[in-house]
């Protein structure tokens, strides 16, 4: 215990609450409150209604939700496959080439996502690979953006892996492919699911690159939220935002359940 006097401790806790609540809890509460309201001109929202949610769960918004879910799911699977492969391949390399590969695969984090969007737009709007106007351009951009996070968490997990297991398997005559499939991947499963959750959440909330290249018939939720607030429909926008948060949290919860089961094995 750092602070022993009771009074000082209470003072610190008050400061903590005064900083923490308005900064971190209030924004989420405000969005939640607004999603049930039609007016907000005083301290509290007024005009309780469920109409925002009716608008947020049908037609355009429902389509955007499925768009977001499909995009995030596909992009996460692609990113996880590429990131895991790259991390496993990097682990087998020498020290120097592994560092080079680390730098290469972490590069998309440093590049602004707007620029990633611009680059993908420029590259895939010309004949050899014409993806512009299709859903695949959005999915490609999302996969590029989240692969770095998949790579990072899998690479970190590989360095923590106890080599005794694979050595034992190999000394019993298991081939490298068998060791990978039966020993290494199962041991990596908890971090793989964690990486999948991270990729999914990031892709669900991705706005910057998406704004650069979404085709009219493939509008993910964040773009729809922006469109709603831009035309002044803040309350509908909040309801869609709550739907987005709820969908993300539900998937994360499912993934973390999977993870506990995986780590108990």
């Amino acid at each position: 215990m750092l602070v022993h006097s009771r009074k000082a401790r209470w003072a610190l806790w008050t400061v903590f609450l005064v900083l923490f609540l308005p900064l971190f809890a209030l924004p989420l509460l405000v969005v939640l409150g607004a999603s049930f309201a039609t007016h907000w001109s005083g301290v509290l929202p007024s005009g309780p209604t469920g109409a925002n949610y009716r608008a947020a769960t049908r037609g355009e918004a429902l389509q955007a939700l499925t768009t977001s879910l499909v995009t995030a799911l596909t992009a996460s699977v692609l990113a996880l496959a590429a990131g895991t492969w790259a991390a496993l391949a990097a682990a087998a390399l020498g020290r120097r080439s592994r560092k080079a590969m680390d730098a290469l695969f972490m590069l998309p984090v440093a590049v602004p996502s707007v620029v990633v969007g611009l680059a993908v737009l420029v590259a895939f709007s010309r004949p050899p690979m014409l993806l512009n106007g299709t859903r695949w351009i959005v999915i490609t951009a999302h996969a590029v953006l989240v692969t770095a996070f998949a790579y990072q968490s899998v690479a970190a997990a590989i360095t923590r892996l106890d080599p005794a297991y694979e050595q034992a398997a190999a000394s019993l005559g298991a081939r490298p492919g068998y060791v990978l499939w039966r020993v290494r991947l199962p041991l990596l499963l908890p971090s793989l699911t964690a990486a999948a959750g991270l990729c999914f959440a990031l892709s669900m909330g991705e706005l910057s690159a998406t704004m650069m290249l979404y085709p009219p018939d493939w509008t993910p939720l964040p773009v729809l939220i922006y469109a709603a607030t831009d035309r002044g429909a803040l309350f509908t926008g909040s309801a869609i935002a709550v739907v987005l948060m709820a969908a993300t949290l539900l998937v994360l919860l499912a993934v973390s359940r999977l993870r506990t089961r995986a780590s108990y094995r």
Partner: protein
Amino acid sequence: MAEVAPQVRVVRGGSRPGGGSRRSHTAPRPYKPLLWALPPIALLGLVFLYPLALVVRQSFQPDTGGFSLQPYADVLASESFGRALWTTVWLAVAATAGCLVLGFLLALVIAFVPFPGARTVARFVDVYLSFPSFLITLALLFIYGGTGIVGSFRFLTTPWGVLLAEITYFTPFVMRPLLAAFSGIDTAQIEAAGSLGARAPRIVRRIILPEALPALAAGGSLVLVLCLNEFGIVLFTGAKGVTTLPMLVYGKAILESDYPGACVVAVVNVLISVGLYGLYRVVSRRAGA
């Protein structure tokens, strides 16, 4: 588990005598791992490096065609670019400083002056990281918007509104590595210092801060890069007065269809961010984080 047993038996039955077969697998070592690394590198090259190279190429190609430095001269000389560059840099630096101070204070209380529910707060911080950044601006629109709780619409369209949103959203990115670093500090050290008469500020300065420095450096530089690249927060304020480099890229490319200009701004933005990110990697590796 039930499946594993027979599988192992099959392998044992089919295996050749130990040593020889092992060596035949490991003999072509030098190039085989490299071969396995090639497919993901090629994929990354196709969907990321090649597009980036095209952006660089297009930044040297004005609409009239040919190779020229004209787009650079035009953009770098324009007033809007200079303003955007300055806004981006000072917003990012100020937001990083704010996040570091606030994150350090909050993490300190959670870790060393724990209250009932402190663990829930720590988990809340984790959840916070999985939400998109523009939600914060959306909430601020209600709080400071025209008819909102506080109701000063002007505030949001100034850089200060963006600064507040960025500090709010990015502080958890500092808190998480800090909390991890704090959990590694031996509390006996703190107790010993306390029993020898050191007051709390002195303990923080002499014991906790040195221990937290690597995490602060790593978290701070990550937040700096993320702030330089932040787009959603600025877009949602709808402020015409606040233009950052990513906003400029979006505006030039999508709203004005000036692709060479957008590519020039993009190249500058990438150079700044990647340079800083390289610094972050060096710092965090030295810190062992």
